[in-house]
């Protein structure tokens, strides 16, 4: 539980101000200023500058608002059962643990209900205080990637949606389920409201609704959840009017939540697949990213039942097959006579749930076109020959059944179990044992090669990115960790050095390559980790950090177990390389590529920023021999539930 929703003593809520500050005179100054404005609204406009003169003077009411003098309405309706209580009850019923939000009066009804509904007052969903809507939605993204189920983010009208839009866009690209609640208040600032609020993000959300009555609203909340988690999974939007939030609900009772029903293959297909697996002398499973953690568990059961060697995407993203499972790897014999694809391709048959691609034709009202997300997306320019890679892909692709693999596996297991004989079981046991030996050897061989490779520049300063991953791994390998940040820019060394055995071991990339995602997503993953004995590792690029650093405060405020280690190359280095290359190609000098691409003059002190937000931190660390001890302190801290940041000056790549 956060400090917000626990009981406070008087001491806790009294602002802690350094004794030297004369709080009374500070407040007095502010009050006199405001009073002066109230008495004489024209005071400021007495000697207009040329610039000011081109504007009409603000009205008395505008000034009141701008100077924060607007008091809450005295005639606010007092109701016994506000509609927003029922909305919170619906969120509770659906198991929504968190609502991340930056406050806005368009959802004040719901916010007040999250704080006060029930007796004792509500604890779940917990209100997670975000400093930017982009962070709210990135948190929801990180949480859902780790857990395979949605939390909610709450956005303030037109403004909230626009601040959040890139994060929503990215969540859409990865098909991350989340519920976006947008407040709408026609009686408040008109610029914050719109007739069709969700239109602003319709092109990159799966589903939206703007209910007219309270019962409709509760239904829509339920439907928002079901739509978000049903393939194609993705963000859903519900716009909730202030009227509904404040309405007296009287004796209206929240109907029970009916979970989504997600279907798998039909029985005949399940039987055919089971038979093919059974008949094969060396079957294999190609596995991708499942919908929820249960998908990975079901795939493990299937692999063990039939003794199939199995591929994994666990080093590339969440919800994969456990990397060090004895059956995971190339197997003892790599000539496979039947390959079943589960959320990834196979030369024979694969089961792949529909992706958001299938929605864009209907939902892309803005005509974004989406590049890689279009259903008719053609990687090569039209008319050109397909690349060898595309050709290979075509050849390797057998029949694709657009159906959820996770929901299908239990049906296949049931059919397969019916076919088993003692002789087959003996054959399978032998196959499993030889696969396990081969996979272990393959893993260790790759690891030995990787270790040799990661030593490059080990002792040099600034610190090599490989050394960060290598020195961190022994400190966390026996703990319950989650690498929440994207890793490509920091070398992705975990892929070769670490073991990804949990559905949340690695949460993958941003989705659409949008910078600013790392901190928010890590904080969201840490929300999932907190209370589950897990901790989050965030290898944080400096450029990415600076878009929305306020998530650091959220991590402190909600005591999130998040260890951030800066990959501080003091640049938007990716872009530096591009400019550098282009300058070379254009032949006009190569010593000005840093303009607009580096973060120097002055250098940014990330440890100080973290401290400013209230987070324990250290650095910058330039000497690689100091790294291991710092990492140890960081891991200790997050294991005790305290976020920590280590600034490390790194090699650019």
């Amino acid at each position, binding site marked *: 539980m956060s400090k917000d929703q626990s009981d406070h003593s008087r001491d806790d809520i009294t602002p802690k101000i350094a004794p030297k500050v004369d709080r009374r005179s500070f407040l007095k100054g502010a009050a006199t200023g405001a009073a002066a404005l109230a008495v004489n609204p024209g005071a400021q406009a007495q000697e207009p500058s040329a610039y000011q003169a081109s504007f009409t003077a603000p009205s008395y009411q505008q000034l009141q608002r701008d100077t924060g003098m607007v008091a809450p309405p005295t005639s606010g309706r007092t109701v016994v059962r506000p509609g927003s209580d029922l909305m919170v009850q619906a969120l509770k019923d659906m198991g929504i643990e968190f609502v991340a939000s930056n406050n806005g009066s368009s959802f004040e009804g719901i916010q007040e209900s999250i704080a006060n509904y029930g007796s004792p007052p509500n604890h779940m969903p917990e209100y997670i205080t975000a400093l930017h809507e982009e962070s709210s939605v990135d948190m929801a993204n990180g949480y859902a990637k780790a857990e395979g189920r949605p939390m909610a983010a709450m956005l303030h009208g037109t403004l909230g949606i626009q601040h959040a839009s890139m994060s929503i866009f990215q969540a859409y690209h990865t098909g991350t389920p989340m519920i976006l609640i947008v407040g709408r208040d026609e009686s408040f600032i008109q610029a914050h409201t719109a007739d069709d609020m969700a239109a602003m993000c319709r092109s990159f959300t799966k589903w939206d609704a703007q209910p007219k009555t309270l019962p409709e609203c509760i239904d829509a909340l339920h439907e928002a959840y079901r739509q978000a988690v049903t393939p194609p999974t993705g963000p859903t939007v519900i716009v909730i009017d202030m009227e509904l939030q404040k309405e007296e609900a009287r004796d209206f009772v929240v109907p029970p939540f009916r979970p989504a029903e997600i279907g798998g293959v039909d029985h005949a297909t399940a039987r055919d697949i089971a038979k093919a697996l059974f008949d094969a002398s060396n079957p294999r499973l190609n596995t991708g990213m499942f919908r929820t953690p249960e998908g990975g568990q079901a795939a493990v059961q299937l692999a063990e039942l039939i003794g199939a060697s199995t591929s994994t995407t666990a080093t590339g993203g969440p919800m994969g097959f456990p990397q060090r499972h004895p059956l995971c790897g190339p197997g003892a014999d790599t000539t496979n006579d039947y390959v079943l694809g589960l959320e990834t391709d196979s030369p024979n048959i694969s089961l792949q749930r529909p992706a958001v691609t299938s929605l864009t034709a209907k939902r892309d009202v803005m005509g974004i076109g989406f590049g890689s997300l279009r259903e008719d997306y053609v990687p090569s320019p039209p008319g050109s020959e397909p690349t060898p890679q595309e050709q290979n892909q075509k050849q390797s692709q057998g029949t694709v059944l657009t159906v959820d693999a996770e929901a299908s596996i239990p049906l296949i297991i049931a059919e397969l179990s019916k076919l088993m004989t003692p002789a087959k079981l003996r054959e399978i046991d032998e196959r499993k044992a030889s696969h396990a030996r081969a996979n272990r050897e393959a893993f260790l061989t790759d690891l*030995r090669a990787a270790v040799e490779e990661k030593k490059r520049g080990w002792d040099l300063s600034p610190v090599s990115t490989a050394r960060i991953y290598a020195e961190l791994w022994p400190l966390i390998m026996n703990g319950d960790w989650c690498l929440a940040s994207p890793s490509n820019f920091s070398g992705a060394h975990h892929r070769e050095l670490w073991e990804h055995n949990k559905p949340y071991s690695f949460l993958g990339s941003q989705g659409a390559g949008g910078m600013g995602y790392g901190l928010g997503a890590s904080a969201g993953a840490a929300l999932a980790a907190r209370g589950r004995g897990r901790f989050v590792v965030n290898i944080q690029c400096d450029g990415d950090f600076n878009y929305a650093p306020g998530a650091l405060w959220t991590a402190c405020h909600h005591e999130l177990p998040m260890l951030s280690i800066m990959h501080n190359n003091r640049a938007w280095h990716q872009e530096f*390389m591009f400019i550098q290359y282009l300058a070379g190609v254009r032949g006009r000098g*190569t010593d000005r590529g840093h303009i607009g691409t580096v973060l120097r003059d002055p250098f940014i002190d990330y440890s100080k920023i973290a401290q400013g937000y209230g987070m324990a931190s250290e650095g910058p660390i330039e000497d690689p021999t100091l790294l291991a001890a710092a990492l140890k302190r960081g891991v200790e801290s997050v294991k005790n539930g305290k976020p920590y940041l280590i600034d490390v000056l790194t*090699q650019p790549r």
Partner: protein
Amino acid sequence: MRKHVFGTIVLLMGLYATPAAAQLGPVNGDAEAGAQLYYDHGCYACHGFSGYGRKDLNNTGSPWLTNEEIFRAFLRARADVAPLLPSTDMPNYPANSLSDAMVRDIYAYVRSMPDNRPETADVPALRNILEAAEQRQYKP
């Protein structure tokens, strides 16, 4: 002109076909000045601050580092929008960007870069990674 440069490279590379240390050409430039140029002209972007990066420079046996002439020809060979050599990674450095003298200094710096790959046995973290992976059993 382009053919000429390409011809020179092929010829020079033929002369120094086996990149053994003994066959490396002499270093004539100033490594310290080269270090500054290496930084100012963004070589570190891909080759790291110390020669390890997307593309290593340290003791790699790269034929392009055989001697100053080859190195210079290599930098110049991309002096156009359509590079002469089939590479899209390495920017070109025409003479108006890096003079011959500057190239000499950068060459000296690159040749001075340390080859830093300690023995695995001497690095506790790496030893630990290998030992743990060998011992650990998979647990769901």
